[in-house]
Every structure is written in structure tokens, then in C-alpha cells.
């Protein structure tokens, strides 16, 4: 019980910390809106040439763009979030302090990342979506139950994303500079999350593999739930898929963390 309160406080602190960057948040909202406007036009041109492509009508396709812009920073498709802090602590050697704190290393960072994501969903999700609704004919659900499922799906998406980024960050225990791995992870994540193009449009083998990889949990599944392309049993299956990857990645992270801390090299003094 006390532990839950602790992690809740950590998450709340992280939320407040990101809420103080007001200028940066406004600039980010502006950027998300500009990209949304540009990408929605390209999608409309494609759906104009091929109506109903991938099972989406033009309105759903445009809405997909705005959902993905709203989720981009929230689920950290680009990486970042707690990763930047953790990387800095590897560099300075502060990581040693984290390891003998009386809190769980993995849960601590998960809590900060959930706090960050909650703020970003609110700040950089809502405003660009309103811009999209003002300029385009979008298709958002009116049923509050769909929104509730969507929020659950986004939460799981953040945990899956955390699991992936945590593994990438742990390479810092072996490599003194994990920038290279981070950039490679970024490419894979952008492509297989459905951020650039719904993965239902991927051809052949790519289209067969992409939906079972963990990155599908980041953008494609929350978007499909909000677009009501997955309802009832299909929505439950999507959430189960996300939950499965979340648990698997967290357990794997724990395993790797155990291996890493046994041979930790601390820099500095």
C-alpha cells in the first residue's frame, strides 16, 4: 500500500515537472498541428486515388493522422522521456545511487514515464486534435465506453513503449554510449508502430510480420480502437495483445537488469 503511494507520488512529480515547460509544450502543439495538416493532405490524396484503402474511409484516414500526432510524444515513438534522464545518470555515474535506493529501479522509472505520458496526452494530444477537427471532417466516437477503452489502450501502449525503451537504455550498462542503439530503435519504432502509415497497408511479408511485433501496440491498436475498427471481442483481443507484450517486456527488462547490475561499472568518483 505504501509502495503504491510512493510510485503515485513519483508519477505526479513527473507530471508536474513536464507541466512547467509551458513554452516548449506550446511549440510542440504547434509542430504537431503543422505536421497533422501536411500529413492529412497527403492521406486525403491517397484515399482520393484509392477510396476505402486498407478498410479505412477517407474520414477515418484523416482521423488516423490526428490520433497518431496526438500519441507521438505520449507513447514516445521517437524514444526519449525517462531515457534522457537515465542516459545522463549513466554518464555521470549517478546510476550507482539509483541502484542502492530502497525503491525498485524499474518501477521507479516506469512511474516517472507514466506521469510524463499523462501530461503529454493531455497537453499535446487534445489541442492538435481540436485543430484537426476544425479543419477536416474527422470521425471521433461519441460513446464514452470507446473513449475509456482507448485510454486503457494508450496506458498499455505507454507501458509497452517503456518496456522497449528500458531495454534499449539498459545497453548503457555495457556500452558507454547507447546513442547508436537508440537511433536504430527509433527507426524500427517509427516504422512498425504505424506512425508513418497504418501497418494494415504494408504489403506481403512486411504486412504479415508487422501486426505481431510489439510496436503495433504503440499507435496502430489505440488508433483502431478509437476509430471503432476494433469493437467488442476484437478490442479485447487488441488489449490482450498489448498486455501480453507489456508483461513480457517488463519481465525481460527485469532479467536483463539483474544481469547488468552484477557487472556494473561506475564512472567518476
Amino acid at each position, binding site marked *: 500500500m505504501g509502495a503504491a503511494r510512493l510510485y503515485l507520488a513519483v508519477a505526479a512529480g513527473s507530471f508536474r515537472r513536464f507541466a512547467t515547460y509551458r513554452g516548449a509544450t*506550446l*511549440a510542440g502543439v504547434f*509542430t504537431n498541428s503543422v505536421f497533422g495538416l501536411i500529413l492529412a493532405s497527403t492521406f486525403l*490524396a491517397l484515399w482520393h486515388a484509392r477510396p476505402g484503402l486498407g478498410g479505412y474511409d477517407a474520414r477515418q484516414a484523416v482521423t488516423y493522422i490526428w490520433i497518431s500526432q496526438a500519441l507521438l510524444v505520449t507513447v514516445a515513438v521517437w524514444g526519449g522521456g525517462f531515457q534522457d534522464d537515465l542516459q545522463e545518470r549513466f554518464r555521470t555515474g549517478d546510476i550507482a545511487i539509483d541502484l542502492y535506493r530502497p525503491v525498485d529501479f524499474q518501477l521507479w522509472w516506469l512511474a516517472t514515464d507514466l506521469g510524463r505520458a499523462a501530461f503529454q496526452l493531455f497537453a499535446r494530444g487534445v489541442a492538435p486534435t481540436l485543430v484537426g477537427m476544425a479543419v477536416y471532417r474527422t470521425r471521433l466516437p461519441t460513446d464514452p465506453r470507446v473513449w475509456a477503452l482507448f485510454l486503457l489502450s494508450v496506458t498499455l501502449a505507454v507501458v509497452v513503449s517503456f518496456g522497449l525503451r528500458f531495454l534499449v537504455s539498459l545497453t548503457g550498462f555495457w556500452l558507454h554510449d547507447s546513442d547508436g542503439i537508440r537511433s*536504430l530503435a527509433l527507426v524500427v519504432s517509427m516504422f512498425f508502430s504505424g506512425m508513418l502509415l497504418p501497418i494494415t497497408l504494408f504489403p506481403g511479408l512486411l504486412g504479415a510480420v508487422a501486426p505481431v511485433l510489439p510496436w503495433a501496440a504503440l499507435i496502430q491498436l489505440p488508433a483502431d480502437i478509437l476509430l471503432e475498427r476494433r469493437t467488442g471481442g476484437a478490442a479485447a483481443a487488441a488489449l490482450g495483445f498489448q498486455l501480453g507484450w507489456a508483461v513480457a517486456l517488463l519481465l525481460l527488462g527485469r532479467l536483463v537488469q539483474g544481469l547488468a547490475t552484477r557487472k556494473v561499472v561506475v564512472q567518476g568518483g
Partner: protein
Amino acid sequence: MAEPVLLVRESLPRRVWWALRCWWLIAGMWTKAALSYRASFALLLLASLAVSSLDFVVILLMFQHTDQLGGWALPDLAFLYGTSTFCLGAANMLVGSIDALGDRVRAGTLDTVLIRPAPALAQLCAERFSPRRVARPIQSVLVLGWALQRLPVQWTASRLLLVPVILVCGTAIFCAVFVGFASLQFWWGQVGEIQNSFTYGGATLLHYPPTIFAKELVAGAVFGVPLAFVNWLPALHILGHPDPLGLPTAFQYASPVAAVLACAAAGLVWRRGLRAYRGTGS
């Protein structure tokens, strides 16, 4: 803060030469630093190549489902993509580091830049230079080469001449956009990301034909931030497409004028910003 006093008034060409030399020396220093971690550098270069190719992969995937987008075919889009990405990539190499200006203003470390005997703009543009920034220009040249082979274009002298004009003037326009919007951080500390809307967002806009965008957006790219002069307007002449705005044909040759005006405007904003700068006193 008073206007920085130049102790020796030198002629403009000498000052430009000195600024370029400073840029080169600082960039060289950062290159050396980056190359000292060879494995990491190789990975980063590969990743940069892959990241900068992703948006072209999206275009290729789109053309799996259609033969044309807004009336333009795949080689047309590859031409737009190659030119736009080259200009953005080259500008990012030359002046891209300026986006860290906001951090320096906030932390007060801009003071140390200003007291060094080298031009501040050249120092900031070369700061944190990474040789992996060559990835984007390299990848764009490959796409452009493919596009030039596949385009069904009669290569007249004017069309042929416009290609290098695009590459040079487009780079200059993107440099101006980088510097101009980064200078806003003198007044509004943390708004660095706004710059991304016009640099990376602008380049994304120019990957696609103007016919698929709202007329207001296209007009904004002609008369507002002059991105249309990077490749859209000259490409209309090269590829033989009608102008959706119906502008006079002179606009299709006007990229050099637009580049000069954009650079002058960016220079002005930079100088006003530098004059408005106050140190943190630390």
C-alpha cells in the same frame, strides 16, 4: 547589451572568409570527437541513413496502392523528394546546430560564445556538428539520381540549369529558415520546436505535389515562408506541370531572388535578436 564593437573594421569578403574558416575549424573539431567512438559512429551513420530514408519508403508504399498522387507520378515525387531532402540535409549540415540557441540563452552560456574572437553565428552553426549529417544529402542524391533517369522530360537548357539552381538556392532558403526561426529563441526561450515545423515540416510539405494541399497553404509557402521556391515552383517548369495557383512563369525562375531575400530577412532577425539578448549574469 550594447552593440558588439568590432575592434577592426574589416571588409565584408574578409569577414565572410573568417566566419567560414571558424565554422570549418569548429566542425572539424567535432568531427574528430565523433570519429573517436568508431563503432558508435558507424551505427549512428547507418541509423541516420535509415531514418532519412523512412519518409521515402512511405511514398514507395503509397505508390504500391496508386499510380499517381494529385496528378503526379512516382518519378515526379522522387524528384520533389530528392531536391527537398537534399536542400534540408545540406542546410542542416551547415547551420543545423543553431537550434540549440535556446539552451544557451537559458543557461547563460551564450556569453562565452560572444567573448570569443570568432563570429557568434559561425560558432553556433558549427557547434555539436556531427559528420553523420552527410547521411541525408547522400541518400537524397541517390533518390534524385534515380528520379532524373526515370523522368520523361525533354532536357532543354533552362530545365537543365534549374536543377543546380534548386540545389543551391533551396539550401540557402532552408539555412535562412533555420537561422531565422532559431533566432526567435532570443525572445521566447524554449520554443525551439517551432523551428521544426518550418524546417522538417517544410521539407515534408515539399516531398508532395502542391496540387494535394489547400491553396492557402501553397500561397503561404510562396508569399509567407518562401518554401515553394526551394523546389515546387522550379519543378513545375522542369516537370511540365500546370501551376495550381496560376502565378506568372517568372516565379518559376525566381528562386535566387527568394533565396537572397530570405537570407537577408534571417540575418536581420538574428541581429535584432542578438541585440535583445541579455546575459544571465552568471
